[in-house]
């Protein structure tokens, strides 16, 4: 299977509560919280599309869209 390529991180700012789980457990440190405690993808070029942020988000607020999806 081809390596998944990132299209975008779809972040629902209304649903994100800034718990920081995705930021902490991202293996490539792609994500950070902004000054409003909402998640943003600051280093999308480093994303390996493992989707652990999406799977662990308690608020269903982040989705990793790949070219294959």
């Amino acid at each position, binding site marked *: 299977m081809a390596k998944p390529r990132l299209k975008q991180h779809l972040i629902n700012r209304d649903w994100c509560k800034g*718990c920081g789980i995705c930021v902490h457990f991202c293996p490539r440190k792609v994500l950070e919280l902004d000054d409003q405690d909402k998640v943003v993808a600051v280093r999308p070029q480093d994303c390996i599309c493992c989707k652990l942020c999406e799977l662990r988000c308690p*608020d269903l607020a982040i989705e990793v869209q790949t070219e294959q999806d």
Partner: protein
Amino acid sequence: MAVGNYIRERFFPHIWCPGCGHGIVLNGLLRAIENMGLKKNDIVMVSGIGCSSRIAGYLDFHTLHTIHGRALAFAVGVKMSRPELTLLVPMGDGDALSIGGNHFIHACRRNIDMTAIVMNNRIYGMTGGQYSPLSGYGTMATTAPYTNIDQEFDIVNMATAAGATFVARATAYHVLQMAEVLEAAIRHKGFSVVEVMSPCPTYFGRKNKEGSVVDMLEKLKTTTTPLGSKAKQENPSLIERGVFVKKEMPEYCAEYQKIIERAMKGK
């Protein structure tokens, strides 16, 4: 979102606190159901009272939000009348094992085909952080300011002893394994119990100085181990996760159908 079809988006963002493990259980459950390709009209979710039980409101299945501890009793009623439906019964630790303890053990004994998901956060979150039967000796709670002296239940041992034919434990940290275990539990024909260790950063975490939800998830990573691992032999205090029991027994609805047929023949 791929799982968006299964949720009631109009009720989001949900009521749970930032970092609540119950949200991760919701996430894992959605992945399991999506992977199985279940139709939402074929699923009935029955819940009781508590933080955990709010999950039924967010999912676009047939949902019943019933009374405290009695979710299993309502679920048995639904299953008996419509055995072809898939029953999911999410409960909190207090809901399942304190208020609903009796319903829980007898549902295990009957082996009726449904999946009980015990979202174990070791506290009564909704009512302000009282200790639950899963809090355990030495923990702090609003109602145990000088530490709790009650011993805790072991959900896996209790469900096994009561006769459940599928018993498993997962954690909110190990979300992929949680989804796999939930899928296996839903597929199992009989009464399935899945304990999911779910952090409550607001009450359990704060009262017991466990830090942020990130620290609590890290703790789930370091204090648990796969079932039968070598690490468990070296460190017996580790909590095992995985499928503990999976066995075949006569299923209640199928047996009841035989009774109906026998009665129709008049003997």
